C-alpha cells in the first residue's frame, strides 16, 4: 500500500469537510493510505500571501512541505491553490540556493530544515500518473450516470513550467478520470476559464470575482449538465457560495450542484451523498441529491 501525507489546507477541512472525508475514503479504496499531516497551516494562499511578502510565503509553505519531509513521504493536496503554493515553493527552494538558505534560517528558529527530499502531489495528477485510469475504472461498483462539466481550474495546470502535465490549452487527464467513473464529460464554452476567486480578487473585489463565476455557471448550464466537477475547494466555494451571492447581487439563480472529484469517485464506489457530504453544499438542490442517491445506495 502506498502512503502519502494529506495536506488539508483551509477550505476543505473548515468549509467543505465532506471533501476531506471523501478523499480519505476513496484513496483507501484505491490502496493509498493517507497519513495526517499534523500541525500543518494555510498553504499559504499563493495569490495573496505571495503578493504580500515572498519570504513569509516561502517560509510558511516550506514548513508545510518539511512536515511531510520529516515523515519521509510525498505530500498530497486536493486543492489547486494549495498545489500552486506548495509545488512552486518546493521547486523554487530546490533550485534557488540563496532563497533556500534564507528560508532555512527562518525554519531553524522553529526547529525545521528544508531538505528538498519530497514531491508535492495533486490528487488529479497523482490518480492519473501513479494510480492510473484503469485502476480507477475498476474501483467503480456503480457507474455514475451523470453529465458533468469538468472545471480544471488554474493552478492545477499552470504555470506549466512547474507542472509538466501536458497541454494547458486542451488538457484531457481530468476528463479521462471523470469518464472512468461512468460520467460523461460534456464540452462547454470557455471550459478552461478561471472561476474568479484567486489572486485575492474574491477577497477584495467580490462583485467582479462573481462575474467570472457567473459566466462559468451560465456556460455549464447551457451545456445541460447535471453538475460541475472540480478539484479545488476554493473554486468549489466560489461556485457554490458564489451562487447565493450572485442571486443576491445579480438576481441569477442557477441551482447548479458543485461536486469535488473525490466525492464523484465516492459515489461510484457506492457511498451515499450524505456520507460524502455532497448534501452539505450551500446551494440546496434536492432533485440532484435524489438523483445521485439512486446511483449506488448505502453500503
Amino acid at each position, binding site marked *: 500500500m502506498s502512503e502519502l501525507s494529506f495536506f*488539508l489546507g*483551509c*477550505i476543505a*477541512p*473548515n*468549509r467543505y*469537510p465532506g471533501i476531506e*472525508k471523501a478523499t480519505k475514503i476513496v484513496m483507501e479504496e484505491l490502496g493509498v493510505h493517507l497519513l*495526517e*499531516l*499534523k*500541525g*500543518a*497551516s*494555510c498553504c*499559504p494562499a*499563493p*495569490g*495573496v*500571501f*505571495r*503578493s*504580500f*511578502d*515572498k*519570504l*513569509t510565503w516561502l*517560509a*510558511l509553505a516550506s*514548513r508545510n512541505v518539511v512536515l511531510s519531509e520529516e515523515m519521509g513521504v510525498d505530500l498530497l493536496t486536493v486543492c489547486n491553490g494549495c498545489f*500552486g503554493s506548495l509545488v512552486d515553493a518546493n521547486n523554487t527552494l530546490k533550485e*534557488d540556493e540563496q532563497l533556500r538558505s534564507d528560508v532555512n534560517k*527562518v525554519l531553524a*528558529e*522553529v526547529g*525545521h530544515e528544508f531538505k528538498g527530499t519530497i514531491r508535492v502531489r495533486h490528487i488529479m495528477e497523482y490518480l492519473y500518473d501513479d494510480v492510473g485510469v484503469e485502476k480507477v475504472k475498476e474501483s467503480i461498483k456503480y457507474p455514475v450516470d451523470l453529465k458533468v462539466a469538468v472545471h480544471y481550474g*488554474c*493552478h492545477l495546470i*499552470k*504555470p506549466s513550467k512547474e507542472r509538466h502535465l501536458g497541454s494547458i490549452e486542451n488538457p484531457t487527464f481530468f476528463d479521462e478520470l471523470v469518464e472512468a467513473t461512468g460520467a460523461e464529460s460534456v464540452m462547454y464554452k*470557455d471550459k478552461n*476559464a*478561471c472561476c*474568479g*476567486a*484567486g*489572486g*485575492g*480578487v474574491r*477577497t*477584495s*473585489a467580490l462583485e*467582479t*470575482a462573481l*462575474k*467570472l463565476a457567473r*459566466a462559468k455557471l451560465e456556460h455549464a448550464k447551457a451545456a445541460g449538465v447535471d453538475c460541475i466537477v472540480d478539484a479545488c475547494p476554493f473554486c468549489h466555494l466560489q461556485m457554490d457560495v458564489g451562487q447565493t451571492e450572485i442571486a443576491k447581487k445579480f438576481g441569477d439563480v442557477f441551482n447548479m450542484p458543485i461536486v469535488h472529484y473525490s466525492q464523484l469517485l465516492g459515489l461510484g464506489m457506492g457511498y451515499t451523498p450524505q*456520507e460524502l*457530504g455532497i448534501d*452539505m453544499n450551500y446551494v440546496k438542490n434536492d432533485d440532484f441529491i435524489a438523483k445521485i442517491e439512486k446511483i449506488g445506495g448505502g453500503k
Partner: protein
Amino acid sequence: MSDTIKTSDLDKAFRDEVLTEPGAEKLILCFNCTGCTAGCTMAEHEPNYNIRQLLRMANLGMRDELLNHPYLWNCTTCYKCQERCPQGVPNVDILLKIRTMAVHSGIMLDNHRKVAQLMAKTGHAVPINDDNKEKRKKLGMNELPETVHNYPDALEEVHKIVRITEFDKLTEAQS
C-alpha cells in the same frame, strides 16, 4: 486630458527593482502583441483591467501610478497570459512583485489586511467556525481538523515565523 508623463518623473530604480524578480528581465522583450490582454478572462469582465498596460508602466518606471493603481489587484493569477506570451515574459510573477512592492510601501487593501491578520493569528486564512464544526461531527469526523487548529505548538511555530519575517508588522492595522 491628463498631462503627459515626463521622462524626469520616471523612476528607473523602481523599474530595476521590478526586474530583480527571476525572469522579469524579459519584460524589455515585450513587442506589444496584446495577446496577454486579449485573452485575459478578467479583462473580459472588467475592461479597465489591462495587464499589458500595467507591465508597460513598470517598464517605464511609473512607480506611484502603479503602486496606487486601482486595478493592480484584479489579476486572479490564472497564468493564461504568462503561458501564452510569445516572448516568455512572466507577466504574473512580475505583477506579484509589483504588488509586494505596494504592500511594502504601506499600500494594502483593507480586506487583504484582514485576511493576512487572520492567517497570522490562527494559521488559517479561512479558520473553522461553529457551523463547520457541526458539519464535521455530522460526518463522523473530529470537530477540529489535524492542522494548527488542533496543535497549539504548531500554531506557535507559525506565530514565530511571522514575527521573524516581520509579516505581523507588515500587515498590522494602520493607525
